[in-house]
């Protein structure tokens, strides 16, 4: 008698969905894919019940898989199979000639290579979720995922969007939305970002080629995502496999895997085990509940009710009014304020990706409310969309949001000395000293986890934000979720769900996390005293009582939360409008508004080689507003006749002058213009020329160049200046060089001002990484000798050995002469920079311009790495110099508390010292994300500046191209300086 094949059951519980497959051999008897909303055990039981008939009295072999399946398997005593391994099982059974599998799940992304032994890679701690990422982005665009997919198919262009994590991407997308870029283009760009992330973050140096199978929910649902993958990977139709079982592949693999196990279960046994597991609660180290009881909560409510604003009835009010608009990143807020500061009208809502439309609607509404009895005397706007809205509606004033918030906070407490604003997607805080903003801290792109994070989370668990917040108040054991970036919180939440935490506990835990994030990541405060005595908190997120309570609890200190916490930006704008009001407002009248139209068109600026993506907004009256530009040129303005000095530009010009040259030897050496080459490039350029080689630089970076080398980056958490190196290598190879030179040097130039002259490990040894991760390097010769730049004799010896080993025929004298020439060239280069620096400082002082030391490391002058922040600064009226142009001007060299053993750091410290010695000089430090070593310099530079009573401004940069936030930062700096000057 023929034996009927064994029934096997695969259960895959991921972060958001449950997938179950019942199979007999390779035949699928039942499959399902459903969201579990954190109710892992209940969902599993519910699905199992549907299988009762199919299983009947037979026995079944079972394997559980998935990130949330681990806990279930453990509690129920069922076999577990790791999910990537399970995917491998599916492939081995059904498509054994597959070369690569790309599998995207709710929060995990995997690439599995099958050639030469299975090589499986999963996303690391810093790789943002994928399915969850797409969900989050859809929420941001206010569309469903299905709509997002549909939209993406109509796209005409792709914008660069960072996809390392949702926070980064949001920062890129928000300005696009505010600028009115087409949703369809953004949708396609989001999918492209996912593809780029998969290649850069996961493949890590291994090409995805051959027969590629795509698995997982997002890939099976989104046509647009599939198209982007096929397009970017250049796959032919027969090489891109999208199997029908894509979304259940892990469960299927688990079922296949189960067949190899010994243990068999009956249906009853299975249900009993899973059922029993529901009562097993693993130990969770819960935090204390936010409120002990209802009375406790009531007292809290009463205390905060004190900070209120009076309302007036617009129907009966007669007189003047002032309008304030806060066009934020995700929400638009409006207030109409009466002469004696009563509220006549308020609006707070998501801007649905179309702030212009919302404001227009609201203005119409406000005009209706006002009728003839209220006269709007002035209107001001603040926030991300400030410029756009001001131009569109001809508002009287625009002000930077930090100043708006300060103005508003001072209304509630004239003695306010600390303001914390947690909004939809940013945290801003400022210290007030002597009535002026003294220091500003904004959340860096990695540490958001703000309001919209709670909102997105609430939605993903199936709750409204308010309801979600309420659940937190009396949750018995809030989950401890840590205080790092949201991606980590996502996985901590997974862990908590696994451990059986309730939704309330998670909600409360998220509130605590947001607060900890703000205090320890953004403010970096050790105690409440450090913040100040009169703290005002604001921003929509603080309307969530759980967040407010967590904050007070963490500080051990009561704070003021105005009842209009969510409207403070608009309130500040209204107050500002009042203080600057003239007789007549310039705002569009009711009639003009009727004929108001707005169109936006994406374009590429051809003003220079930057090729910025810009958006041209055209309004009914023919006025145009251009956004996305990095300089005045893009805005359609001509450059000034005598532009302000900009040392970054000057240094770039010096490099541009070092053009490709041919030599008497038939061999061209390529110099990748990245990392340490920005310092010693002139040296090597002169050296190889003197030796008779042809020489060329790879040129400045741009996004395209970065993407060329992206596939070969092995460590996605390295800094952008390092990752961009891969593109430069590709560029040089394309340019047809014969060899590429990037020496390994533990030590940098010794300028004899510090205890040592180290390079950072990345600058020093990146060539070692390149040589083993870039297969294209095999087509040229790659030289990375270990060299001592500080000892001429030794350097000659080393170079001679290197040259003779690689080429032969070099004489000692020839090399010694070349080294001398190179050294002179480098010294002349540095001297030029210092002289130009001196000239710039002199001109700033002579003409009364503000001077900005835009400091960092030499490679920050690269237009792609530095995002042309230098040009932005000059448009704002700063004379811009680099740290190496002024470090020598410090009369008393800095004596930092930290070990001063890096050449670049020593310059930074001395440049900061120079700033403290120079009137009208400010320092802005550019810090690349992932630069661990800058954790030390930032603290040091800050103390040097603060000791000299100067403001410290830090700008963290990565692949992100959002200049909006940087503008706010720099304008706030100017605002703070003006206030200080006014005071002094």
């Amino acid at each position, binding site marked *: 008698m023929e034996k009927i094949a064994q029934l096997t059951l695969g259960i895959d519980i991921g972060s958001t969905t449950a997938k179950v497959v019942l199979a007999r051999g390779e035949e699928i008897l039942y499959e399902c894919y459903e969201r579990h909303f954190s109710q892992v055990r209940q969902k599993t039981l519910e699905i199992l019940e549907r299988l009762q008939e199919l299983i009947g009295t037979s026995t079944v072999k079972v394997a559980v898989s998935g990130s949330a399946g681990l806990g279930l398997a453990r509690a129920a005593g069922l076999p577990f199979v*790791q999910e990537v391994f399970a995917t491998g099982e599916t492939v081995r059974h059904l498509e054994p000639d597959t070369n690569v599998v790309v599998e995207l799940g709710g929060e995990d992304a995997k690439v599995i290579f099958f050639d030469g032994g299975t090589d499986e890679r999963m996303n690391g701690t810093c790789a943002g979720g994928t399915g969850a990422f797409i969900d989050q982005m859809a929420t941001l665009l206010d569309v469903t995922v299905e709509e997002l997919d549909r939209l993406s198919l109509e796209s005409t262009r792709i914008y660069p969007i960072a996809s390392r994590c949702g926070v980064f991407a949001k920062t890129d997308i928000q300005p696009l939305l505010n600028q009115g870029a087409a949703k369809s283009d953004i949708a396609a760009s989001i999918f492209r970002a996912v593809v780029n992330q998969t290649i850069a973050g996961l493949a890590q140096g291994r090409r995805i080629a051959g027969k590629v199978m795509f698995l997982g929910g997002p890939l099976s649902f989104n046509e647009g995502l599939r198209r982007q993958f096929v397009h970017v990977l250049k796959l032919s139709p027969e090489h891109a496999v999208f199997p029908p079982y894509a979304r259940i592949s892990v469960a299927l693999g688990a079922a296949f895997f189960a067949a190899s196990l010994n243990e068999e279960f009956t249906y009853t046994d299975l249900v009993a085990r899973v059922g029993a597991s529901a009562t097993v609660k693993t130990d969770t180290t819960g935090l204390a509940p936010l409120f002990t009881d209802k009375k406790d909560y009531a007292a809290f409510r009463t205390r905060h009710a004190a900070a209120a604003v009076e309302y007036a009835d617009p129907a009966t009010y007669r007189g003047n009014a002032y309008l304030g608009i806060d066009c934020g990143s995700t929400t638009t807020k409006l207030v109409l304020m009466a002469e004696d500061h009563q509220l006549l009208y308020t609006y707070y809502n998501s801007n649905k990706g179309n702030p212009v439309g919302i404001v227009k609607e609201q203005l119409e509404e406000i005009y209706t409310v006002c009728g003839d009895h209220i006269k709007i005397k002035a209107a001001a706007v603040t926030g991300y969309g400030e410029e756009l809205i001001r131009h569109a509606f001809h508002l009287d004033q625009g002000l930077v949001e930090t100043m708006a918030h300060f103005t508003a906070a001072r209304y509630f407490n004239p003695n306010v000395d600390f303001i914390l604003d947690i909004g939809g997607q940013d945290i801003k805080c400022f210290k007030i000293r002597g009535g002026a903003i003294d220091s500003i801290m904004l959340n860096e792109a990695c540490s958001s986890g703000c309001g919209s994070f709670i909102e997105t989370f609430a939605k993903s668990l199936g709750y409204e934000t308010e309801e979600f917040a309420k659940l937190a108040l009396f949750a018995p054991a809030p989950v401890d979720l840590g205080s790092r970036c949201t991606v980590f919180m996502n996985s901590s939440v997974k862990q908590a769900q696994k451990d059986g935490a309730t939704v309330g506990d998670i909600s409360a835990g998220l509130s605590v996390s947001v607060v900890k994030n703000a205090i320890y990541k953004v403010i970096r405060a050790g105690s409440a005293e450090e913040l100040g005595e009169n703290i005002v908190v604001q921003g929509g997120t603080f309307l969530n009582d759980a967040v407010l309570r967590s904050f007070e609890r963490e500080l051990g200190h009561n704070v003021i939360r105005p009842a209009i916490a969510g409207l403070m930006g608009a309130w500040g704008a209204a107050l500002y409008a009042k203080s600057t009001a003239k007789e007549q407002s310039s705002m569009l009248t009711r009639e003009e508004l009727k004929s108001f139209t707005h169109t936006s068109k994406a374009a590429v600026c051809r003003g220079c080689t930057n090729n910025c993506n810009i958006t041209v907004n055209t309004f009914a009256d023919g006025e145009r507003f251009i956004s996305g530009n990095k300089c005045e040129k893009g805005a359609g303005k001509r450059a000034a006749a005598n532009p302000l000095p900009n040392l970054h530009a000057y240094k770039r010009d010096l490099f541009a002058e070092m053009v490709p040259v041919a030599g008497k030897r038939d061999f061209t050496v390529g110099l990748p213009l990245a990392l340490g080459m920005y310092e010693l490039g002139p040296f090597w350029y002169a050296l190889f020329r003197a030796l008779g080689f042809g020489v060329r630089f790879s040129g400045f970076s741009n996004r395209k160049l970065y993407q060329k080398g992206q596939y070969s980056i092995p460590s996605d*958490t390295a800094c952008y200046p390092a990752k961009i190196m891969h593109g430069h290598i590709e560029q040089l190879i394309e340019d047809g060089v014969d060899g590429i030179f990037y020496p390994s040097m533990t030590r940098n130039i010794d300028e004899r001002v510090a205890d040592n002259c180290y390079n950072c*490990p*990345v600058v020093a040894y990146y060539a070692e990484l390149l040589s083993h991760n870039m297969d294209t390097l095999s087509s040229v010769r790659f030289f990375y000798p270990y060299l001592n730049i500080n000892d001429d004799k030794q350097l000659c010896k080393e170079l001679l050995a290197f040259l003779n080993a690689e080429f032969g025929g070099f004489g000692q004298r020839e090399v010694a002469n070349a080294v001398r020439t190179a050294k002179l060239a480098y010294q002349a280069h540095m001297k030029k920079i210092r002289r130009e620096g001196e000239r710039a400082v002199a001109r700033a002082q002579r003409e009364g311009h503000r001077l900005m030391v835009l400091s960092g490391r030499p490679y920050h002058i690269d237009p792609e790495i530095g995002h042309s922040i230098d040009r932005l600064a000059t448009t704002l009226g700063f004379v811009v110099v680099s740290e190496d142009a002024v470090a020598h001007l410090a009369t008393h060299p800095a004596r930092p508390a930290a*070990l001063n053993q*890096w050449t670049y750091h020593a310059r930074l410290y001395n440049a900061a010292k120079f700033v403290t010695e120079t009137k009208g000089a400010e320092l802005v430090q550019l810090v690349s994300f992932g630069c*661990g070593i800058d954790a030390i310099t930032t603290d040091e530079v800050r*103390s040097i500046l603060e000791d000299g009573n100067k403001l410290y401004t830090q700008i963290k940069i990565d692949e992100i191209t959002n200049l909006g936030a940087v503008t706010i930062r720099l304008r706030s700096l100017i605002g703070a300086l003006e206030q200080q000057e006014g005071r002094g």
Partner: protein
Amino acid sequence: MATERVIFTKEMKRDYTILLPNMLEMHFKIMAEIFRHDGYKVELLQNEGQSVIDCGLKYTHNDACYPALLVIGQFIDALQSGKYDVNKTAVMMTQTGGGCRASNYITLIRKALARAGLSQVPVISLNVSGLEKNPGFKLTLGFGKRILYAVYYGDLLMSLVNQCRPYEVLQGSTQAMADKWVGYLVKELNSGRSLNYKTVQKNYINILKDFELNLPRTKEKKVRVGIVGEIYVKFSPLANNNLERFLVGEGAETVMAGLLDFLMYTVNTAVVDYRLYGMNKMRARIMRFAYNFLHKKQLDFIRMYRENSSFIPPTDFEKTRASIQGYINEGVQMGEGWLLTAEMLELIDGGVKNVVCAQPFGCLPNHIVGKGMMKIIREKHPGVNLVSIDYDPGASRINQENRLKLMLANASRELQEESTASPIHHI
């Protein structure tokens, strides 16, 4: 606020308690005894858990690396516990002076102490490069030698525990035997008997024999998993979420090189600096001498392993150095530098096909020596399982364990394919 450093004076030596961070339990226990023997009042910190991490987060720049954060957390958590008179306590930390941010631990500790209102606490730098000096703490040759012996003992016990624990018949018997020996060694140090290499050798052999003969072990075949990484994260259970215990619990045997390798790597740095860059000939000579001294001892130990036991001895460091040919240059010397790559290769060479590379999130040298070398290692050694895991205060254990489980699943399939053992895969 430039903080002036508090000097650890001779007077302080008498009545101050010096807190030591914990990295390697057995090594540091023995070292602590040597300190005590020399008249220092020292305390090896045992505090761990969330409060340590919270303290670290609160008082350190959060972008500083995880080991710094934990060490600082451990210090401040202890100082705030009320167990110590904060006016009579000092803390001690090593300082290498290399090009990695780790050189700045001392500064970070001082800053953190100042923020916590504990700026009166002296921070003693334990360094051999003459970076900072304290009159109350002198590194004599004899003292250094005894600390070195502690490293020998610690490495031996660690290696034996790793090789025995997964196979012990009686649960806990391995740890009991290791504890017994730590106790014995500590007592011997306290007895005032002068330490000499002869005694070390005698103890070494006795320990090897004791483990070999008196610790019943099974003969099962288990998956062997190597651990390499940034030194603190590699060794400290506090930093790596009990990586060793997790792997052993999952039925694996863990393999890792000892502290002596790192020491020899560090000593070798000056020799390489001279060879590559022509720097400081004198220093290179002294270090060459020290290196040869250490290497000779290592060869003795390897011989003792072979003559007295069936355990796998440490790898000859000269072989370790040679292994990186074709992979990475010895000039890569920041952080763990080329040694990390060498340790991966050494493990693979010794038949350990599964290697976990553990590092703090965003560890700069490891971009190159760890993640940067994996592609070429995989290419040259098909079938190896390399897993890189980042650790930091926010990283959830579930992600880390998930990745480890993937590695173990692959490894156990290979083990099954090799042997005829029944396919078991259970939690």
